[in-house]
């Protein structure tokens, strides 16, 4: 099963996690690869953690085994920690540095860890770690809601990513609303460049 590439996406409802993973899956299909994906709907979406799992290659179940993800894309820093059980030392991890603090913290019934300790923990554990300020880059591209495409662009730029950039872009065009294509493509390119130039958008 070495030829199966496993991507774990984790984010918060409203960040476009499902859309980003669907785009990757459809691009894989365009390349002629088999692909299976699992997504969340319904109650889980109302402000909750959103997880999608994608396996490219001859897999049957889209559910990724513990420690088996080749790539983790975390749309939110604390969520990256929530998905630690899915990765191993060889995994590649892309983390958006912009936190989303849930309302439970204001209510005083849960805590959001210090951001620096989140990053410290990630850096201590993960060798192939890219922390990028996708929110800032998305704003630069023209809209904060293009954050997911910044992260997707970053993913397309990492070594061993199994799908060509062009196919991902084609898939984006077919899955995103026409009136936002320009911003989303710009966001994707900026994310891609960010990784190519070494991921310097954030000092940690």
């Amino acid at each position, binding site marked *: 099963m070495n030829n199966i590439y496993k991507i774990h996406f984790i984010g918060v409802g409203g960040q476009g996690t499902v859309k980003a993973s669907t785009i990757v899956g459809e691009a894989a299909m365009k390349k002629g690869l088999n692909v299976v994906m699992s997504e969340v709907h*319904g109650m889980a979406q109302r402000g909750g953690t959103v997880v999608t799992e994608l396996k490219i290659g001859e897999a049957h179940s889209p559910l990724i085994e513990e420690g088996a993800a080749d790539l983790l894309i975390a749309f939110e820093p604390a969520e990256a920690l929530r998905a630690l059980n899915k990765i191993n030392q060889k995994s590649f991890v892309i983390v958006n540095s912009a936190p989303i603090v849930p309302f439970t913290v204001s209510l005083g019934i849960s805590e959001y860890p210090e951001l620096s300790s989140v990053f410290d923990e990630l850096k201590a554990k993960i060798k192939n770690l890219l922390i990028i300020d996708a929110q800032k880059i998305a704003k630069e591209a023209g809209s904060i809601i293009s954050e997911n495409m910044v992260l997707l662009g970053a993913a397309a730029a990492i070594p061993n990513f199994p799908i060509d950039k062009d196919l991902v872009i084609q898939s984006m065009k077919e899955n995103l609303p026409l009136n936002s294509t320009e911003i989303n493509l710009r966001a994707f390119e900026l994310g891609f460049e960010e990784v190519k130039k070494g991921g310097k958008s954030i000092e940690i």
Partner: protein
Amino acid sequence: MKVREILTEKEGEKLFLLGNEAAVRGALEGGVSIASTYPGTPSSEIGDVFYKIAREAGVYFEFSSNEKVALEVSVAAAAAGLRSFVFMKHVGLNVAADSFMSAAYTGVRGGMIVLSADDPSMHSSQNEQDNRIMARLAGIPLLEPSNPQEVKDLMKFGFDLSEQFKIPVLMRTTTRISHMRGVVNLGAIIKGKEKGYFKKNPEQYVVMPTYSVKMRKKLMEKLDKIEEIANNSPLNKTIDRGGKTLGIVTSGGAFNCAMDVVSENNLKVKILKLTFSYPFPEKLLLDFINSVDNILVAEEVEPVMEKEVLAIIGKYNIKKKVYGKLDGTLPRIYEYNPDIISFGIAKIVDKELVKREKFSTKLSLPLRSAVLCPGCPHRATYFALKKAIKKLKLKEEEIIYSTDIGCYALGLEPPYKMGDYCISMGSSLGIGCGFSRATNQKVISFIGDSTFLHAGIPPLINAVHNKEKILLVVMDNRITGMTGGQTNPGIPVDGMGNPAPEVSIEKIVRGVGAGLVKSINPVDLKETEEVFKEALRFEGVAVVIAKHPCAMITDAENRKKGISVKYSINQEECTKCLICVKNFTCPAFFIKKDGSVSINPLLCDGCGVCTQICPKKAIEVKK
């Protein structure tokens, strides 16, 4: 992919489809004429797709008032010779069960598929029931797809099977199949018949005891014949990985997990994938059991096939070990994943299975529990009711809050804590009747617009007739919200997007004879509070209809009109009393590190209800 491509893409093309989307394409390729549902996750997207494409496809589609009605609409269409498709979540089949059971007796002429989307692990459900048992209870053939391609292909197969044996067919998916995406090879779409014709035959269609006695016998004969088909069906396939020490009998999502574990570990086993799994293909199983040393049954959720396998082993006096849920090899509860199957197989094979290192964190991670959205009218209703209760000096602990299935059930969370009992669609009122009779406590029931029309009317009749003391609050947000925003009979739009008569909840309530009936707009907090005070003092059945559109609707309307109102806090006026955060609990509010309160403009919906709750009037329109 755009949703419309599910209809427009040609034969031979491929789409990356959700299991639920594949069900729609399969129905179209099978020549469906009529489709009906009541929305319920994980089946909801099937209806969402039909809503968007039914008109163009020339298919009739409706969001029926409940699952029983949906099933009846489809079974009648099938009796008239049309191909019909009814779909629902697993617990929806409980609502439809009365007619479902008898539909097996009466049978159909046109092909009919009933799809039940089960929810192992209860991602968005109240229980984990395994509806493969419903197929057995009714005597209805069962199909269990493992991926979107199979969902699509089984639709057509199911229609043919249903027509051949004149019996409805049950397709059982699970969340991980309904919400799985995969590559689907498309076939040709067949245009279904527009109208059927019902040929009278009371001996077939009226379940009078004298007729039912004959129908029952006929049903058993049908099932025997169908079992022969299942025994020889290519849908039930053996995958031989070159060994006979272990044979794995599996279906649905469990098959996917088992296959990945077997492949990754290169296990020399035999796998029997059952897709056409009821009537249980005894001969096929007997051959399989005889061809291996021991058997593992991997299935979600109940040990249904495991018991069937044990029965065969007992019947033929075979001495072989059956591993599964009953002996604890695999868990009896929750959905499976490859790790769980691997853990189970490791107990019974003589081989070290792949194990991976994994990380964990000691940091405590923030809780992201489901909350009512910013701008949700239910929050205003709860806030005003809470205030009215306080003003009347009623004791919270003496009030029983009987709630129902829908977003408003989130009212059980602090600080509102208005959810003490909830078991099923429409139960808020029936349960309310029971508490009103059995205690001297005050009873307040909550029910949504769609849920009221689904199952709230008979218990309201009961409450009025039996002189119960209940305050019923109808949380009418003009949509079926929790499942993603579908229409319902209380809205002037039908399931195809056409204009439709709007059924008035107020008229129903008045017609039933509730003693006090008031309609209010909950975003007017002052008036709402006054109405609640009056209703709380009323001795009898009082009904308050709190009517305001769901934030999903108002947000979409505002976007369309280009309206973007945001609120912010005037820090000079704010005294940090935190009523907005702690008592009102709109998630757009947050407390900054310096202790000041702020509103996140990305979350603020612009409803403005918070301006009414701030004692210092410190919340104002953001400039």
